[in-house]
């Protein structure tokens, strides 16, 4: 199937005029001959023999129509970029200014699941078509979400088991620098943030997200050498660049498209 799609796309790239994506400008200069009007004309010619050029033109038009039917609103990345960004920043200021919150700020990520589920259900209800890419993306980000909670569980388990031992060692060896697992665990989370972000960026050919994912991995390596306070700041920066900014770009594109095509 992909070979076929590739073939049709290659025809466009090769400059085959009859099936060019924007053939309205090639065939004629009149506004009457928009791709939609040409398609309508082709479909109205029920009795007329379909030429090979017509067939290819029709295939190309429909494939492009299907491709353009999916629009990412960017709401999901904006939500998670904001939540994780805020959690990271609050954690940074909490350590910096040594204040105590009545609750763990990272619990906000659990609360954020509710609007995410609502948005997902709403999108699936209004969606008239399901693209292959969407299914892949859904699976990828669900696995990421579940993975984050498994990673948090493992981190908590390791911390609870090792921390008493480390505290005892620090008590017996005053002045000796001891391992702080919390500081190292941030690196695993940043590594995990990078995976789906890079894959999404590559699959959607969306450079801001690809760059954001790569930044997560760079910050992951840096976080190994920085204290927990800075790690929290790095987490916030990662969330802003990997999700919030790409999400805002997607939202703007969606709004622009909606205004232009009314979708």
């Amino acid at each position: 199937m992909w070979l076929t799609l590739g073939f049709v796309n290659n025809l466009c790239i090769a400059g085959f005029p009859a099936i060019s994506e924007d053939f309205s400008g090639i065939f004629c200069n009149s506004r009457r001959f928009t791709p939609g009007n040409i398609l309508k004309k082709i479909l109205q010619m029920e009795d007329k023999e379909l030429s090979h050029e017509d067939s290819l033109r029709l295939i190309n038009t429909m494939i492009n129509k299907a491709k353009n039917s999916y629009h990412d609103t960017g709401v999901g990345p904006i939500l998670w970029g904001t939540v994780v960004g805020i959690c990271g920043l609050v954690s940074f200021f909490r350590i910096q200014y040594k204040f105590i919150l009545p609750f763990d700020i990272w619990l906000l990520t659990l609360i954020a699941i509710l609007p995410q589920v609502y948005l997902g259900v709403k999108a699936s209800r209004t969606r008239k078509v399901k693209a292959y890419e969407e299914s892949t993306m859904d699976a990828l980000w669900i696995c990421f979400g579940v993975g984050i909670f498994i990673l948090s569980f493992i981190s908590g388990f390791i911390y609870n088991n090792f921390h008493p031992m480390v505290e005892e060692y620090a008590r017996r060896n005053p002045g000796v620098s001891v391992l702080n697992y919390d500081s190292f665990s941030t690196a695993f989370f940043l590594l995990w943030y990078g995976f789906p972000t890079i894959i999404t960026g590559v699959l959607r050919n969306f450079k801001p997200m690809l760059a954001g994912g790569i930044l997560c991995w760079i910050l992951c390596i840096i976080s190994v050498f920085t204290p927990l306070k800075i790690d929290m700041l790095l987490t916030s920066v990662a969330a802003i660049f990997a999700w919030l900014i790409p999400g805002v770009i997607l939202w703007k594109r969606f709004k622009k498209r909606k205004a232009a095509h009314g979708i």
Partner: protein
Amino acid sequence: MEFKDLDPILHSQLRLAIMSLLISVKEAEFTFIKEKTNATAGNLSVQLNKLKEVSYVEITKQFKDNYPLTLCKITLTGIQAFETYVKALQSYMNL
């Protein structure tokens, strides 16, 4: 050079438009296909049934918010037929 015959089921404007749409997506609602092909509901329904008869598409009927919902999906046979059709076109046009 030997020219392959074009599949008569696919060599029709509306059926080819439906197959080209469905090959690009996992599944699509009837209303989506209608909107994208600019076809009438009656004609679309007839052509979809023709494609279903030769097992090129799978049609599932269900309900969404108490309204009937028709979902269409291309089958493996449909994908193979579409590929053969495009290859035949390719050979005709020496591409």
